[in-house]
Structures are given as structure tokens and as C-alpha cells.
């Protein structure tokens, strides 16, 4: 008998629970339908949420559509805008919880922290996801295609054109093209650049290509080593960049011979060898690319090496905005006020984009300095080049060298 009474009591309670649940759910469903119907209107009605984010806002964000956040961003620090104390979202005294969270969301809250550092009090910054998606998406994809495309183009060029050979009879005489010190500077730059290029690509592309093949444990080791190499070898690159600039800038100012050289395409496709001084126009282009792009990579790299200490993009963007160029090119007005993180994100993107361009240029330089041209490697290998090669590719330079040799007094010993 007692069991039956327990059973009946249980049934009644279950029925009550279902009723209560149904009474809760029905208005909720009605609200959801309302929200769905207002989604079609241009002006969003936020009365259902007491002025807070609506289902439509959430759906738009999920679909990647632009969301107007101004109704939240501007709803900070105004007590009259807060809901009444008796309302569901009413204030809890002077400032409400939602007010505080909105302040945090839009970086307007008065945050204090024990953590030191310039960026420690920024809790949420909007542009982080944009940066991450750009870094993993277009930057990685198009950067990769640029390098693969350059290698493909060089292979194709080699197959079509073949190796640039020394046309005339070799003399067996060699003349000094680069001194030990110059070659040291070149290889300091070249070796560090290759290391930085490889470790930079590992940092950018490792998650996508190395984790699936090598696993997380192995990649952690590779990534850690890459970071150490990239951070510390960078100093060798910067030092070598200064060395190379000082050593060779005199020979790299453009002049009339460059126009003739370029007009003949460097003689790469026949038509004889156009005259050139110590560096031809192609080499001058490589030199200035290395100096300007390498310099820019160094500056953005320093900004990344010392996080938050060397912000430069807000100022640069402000200067660019005054020129009107960004708007003319369709970029709109560039942001002039940034969180410290945003500065770092722009530094990273710029660092990677310029590096991809320089890597593509250097691939072509490596090609023509090795397999692409007979006798070219000797210039940086031993420093002594075949006289016939020099006459064909740097005729004006050979004349200068010969003149100086003739000028030297008969008793003088040749310079090393």
C-alpha cells in the first residue's frame, strides 16, 4: 500500500516537473521565433534581450558577416543606460556586471594587474583572430606558392635556356674579383639568411606540414630549435647586412651602363654581352633588394625580438594616411590607434611578407650564381675568376683592373 502511495506521489511530481518545464520553454521558444522574425529587419530590435546581443547578432558573427558592435561599444559608463535595479539585467549598485564586461570586451575597463609588461592589462583585442586567420591562410598559401613558383620558373628557365657558358676561349688567367673580407661578409649574410629562411618557414608552416607528418612531440623540438636559431642568428644577418652595404654601395649606384644592360636583357637571351662595371644592373637590383628588403626585415624583426618595445606601425599608418595612398589603393583609412598586440601582429605579417619576396629574389640569385652560369661561383668561392668570364660579363670592370695594374710601379708587389 505504501509502495502504491509512493508511486502515485512520484507520478504527480513528475507531471508537475513536466508542466513547470513546459511553462518555461514555451515563452523561450516564442522569443526565439520573435528573434528569427526580427532578423529580417534592417534595424535590429533588441528589446527581447534588454538591449544586449541578439540571436541575429550571434548568427551574423557565426556566418562571418560584419557585426555592428557600436550598441555595446558605446554603452559603457552611462548609469542611465543601465537596466533598473528590479529588472533581470538590473545594476548591482553603481556599476553593473554587464557594464564591467562590456568595458573589458572593448578595452575600456580600468584593469590593474600584478603582471608587468606593456600589454598585460589588455584582456581582449579584436584583431587577433583576423591576424591568425590571415597568417594561417593567405600569408602561408600565397607565400608558399611564390617560393614554389619561383623554383618552378627557374627550373623551366634552366631547361629552356640551359647554363650560361663562357663563350670565348678560356685564358687560364685569373683575376681577383672579391677579397677574403668581402667573401666573408657575403657568406655571413648568405649563411644566416638561409638559416633564417628555413627556420622562419618552419615557424610559419610547421603546424600545417610538420605536425601531421612528425607529430606534436617532434615538432615541439623542431619549433623550439627553430626559434632559438631564428632569434640569435638574426644578429649575424644584421651585422653582415651592414658589412655588405659598406663594402659594395660604391659599386652599386645606378648609371648609364645599367640602362644599356637592361635594354639587352643582360644578354641572357642572346645578342652578345652588354658591357658592365664591377656589378651589372641585375646585380645592382639584387644588392638594393637585399639592402632595402633586408633592412626592413631587420627593423620588423627587432620589433619582434623585443616585444612591445619598438612599436612602429601605428605611426607609420598615420603617416601613410596623411598621404591618402591607402584610401586611393582601396585599403581605407589604416588604424592609427592599436593595442600593443596589434603592433606585434602587423610586425609579424610585414616581416613574413617582405621575407617571402626577398627569398624569391635570393632563389634567383643562388641559381645564377651556381648552376645557372659557368664561372660565376668562383667569384664567391675562391674570389678569383677566369679572365674570359670577366671580359664577357664585366668588360668595363676588367678594363679598370687592367688600367690599375699598368699604373702600378714595376717594383711593387701585387695586392693580395
Amino acid at each position, binding site marked *: 500500500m505504501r509502495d502504491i502511495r509512493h508511486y502515485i506521489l512520484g507520478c504527480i511530481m513528475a507531471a508537475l516537473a513536466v508542466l513547470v518545464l513546459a511553462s518555461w520553454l514555451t515563452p523561450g521558444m516564442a522569443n526565439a521565433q520573435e528573434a528569427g522574425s526580427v532578423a529580417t529587419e534592417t534595424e535590429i530590435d533588441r528589446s527581447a534581450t534588454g538591449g544586449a546581443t541578439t540571436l541575429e547578432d550571434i548568427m551574423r558573427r557565426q556566418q562571418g558577416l560584419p557585426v555592428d558592435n557600436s550598441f555595446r561599444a558605446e554603452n559603457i559608463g552611462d548609469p542611465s543606460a543601465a537596466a533598473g535595479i528590479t529588472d533581470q539585467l538590473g545594476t548591482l549598485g553603481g556599476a553593473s556586471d554587464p557594464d564591467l564586461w562590456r568595458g573589458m570586451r572593448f578595452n575600456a575597463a580600468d584593469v590593474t594587474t600584478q*603582471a*608587468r609588461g606593456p600589454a*598585460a592589462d589588455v584582456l581582449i583585442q579584436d584583431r587577433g583572430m583576423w591576424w591568425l586567420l590571415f597568417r594561417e591562410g593567405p600569408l602561408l598559401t600565397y607565400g608558399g606558392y611564390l617560393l614554389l613558383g619561383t623554383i618552378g620558373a627557374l627550373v623551366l628557365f634552366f631547361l629552356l635556356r640551359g647554363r650560361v657558358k663562357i663563350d670565348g676561349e678560356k685564358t687560364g688567367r685569373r683575376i681577383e674579383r672579391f677579397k677574403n673580407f668581402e667573401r*666573408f661578409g657575403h657568406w655571413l649574410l648568405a649563411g644566416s639568411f638561409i638559416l633564417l629562411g628555413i627556420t622562419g618557414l618552419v615557424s610559419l608552416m610547421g603546424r600545417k606540414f610538420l605536425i601531421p607528418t612528425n607529430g606534436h612531440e617532434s615538432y615541439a623540438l623542431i619549433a623550439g630549435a627553430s626559434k632559438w636559431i631564428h632569434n*640569435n*642568428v*638574426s644578429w649575424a644577418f644584421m651585422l653582415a647586412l651592414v658589412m655588405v652595404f659598406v663594402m659594395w654601395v660604391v659599386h652599386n649606384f645606378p648609371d648609364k651602363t645599367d640602362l644599356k644592360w637592361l635594354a639587352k636583357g643582360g644578354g641572357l637571351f642572346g645578342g652578345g654581352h652588354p658591357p658592365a662595371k664591377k656589378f651589372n644592373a641585375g646585380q645592382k637590383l639584387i644588392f638594393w633588394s637585399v639592402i632595402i628588403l633586408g633592412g626592413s626585415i631587420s627593423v620588423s624583426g627587432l620589433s619582434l625580438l623585443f616585444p612591445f618595445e619598438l612599436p612602429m606601425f601605428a605611426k607609420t599608418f598615420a603617416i601613410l594616411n596623411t598621404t591618402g595612398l591607402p584610401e586611393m589603393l582601396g585599403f581605407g583609412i589604416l588604424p592609427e590607434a592599436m593595442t600593443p598586440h596589434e603592433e606585434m601582429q602587423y610586425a609579424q605579417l610585414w616581416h613574413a611578407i617582405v621575407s617571402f619576396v626577398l627569398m624569391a629574389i635570393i632563389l634567383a640569385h643562388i641559381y645564377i650564381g651556381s648552376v645557372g652560369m659557368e664561372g660565376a661561383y668562383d667569384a664567391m668561392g*675562391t674570389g678569383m675568376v677566369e679572365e674570359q668570364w670577366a671580359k664577357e660579363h664585366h668588360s668595363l670592370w676588367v678594363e679598370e683592373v687592367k688600367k690599375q695594374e699598368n699604373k702600378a710601379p714595376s717594383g711593387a708587389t701585387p695586392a693580395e
Partner: protein
Amino acid sequence: MKAMLIGFVAIAVIAVGADYTLHQMGWSAAEQGASPSNVRLGD
């Protein structure tokens, strides 16, 4: 060839030297983000 090898050795020397120097100067990321004292009130 010798210049190339010396260049490569110099890269290694500079890298190790840079790592050592930056640590000596307290420029590791950990030290830059660390608080000099355990508890800080205000600010």
C-alpha cells in the same frame, strides 16, 4: 672556400654570443613579463 667556412663559424659564434648577452642583460621573455615582487597593490 676558407672565407665561406669562417663566415659560417662566425654565424654560430654570433648566435651563441647573442643568446648569452641577451640573457645577461635580462632580456629573456620570461624576465620581461615577470614582476619584481610577489605582491603589488594598486597600479
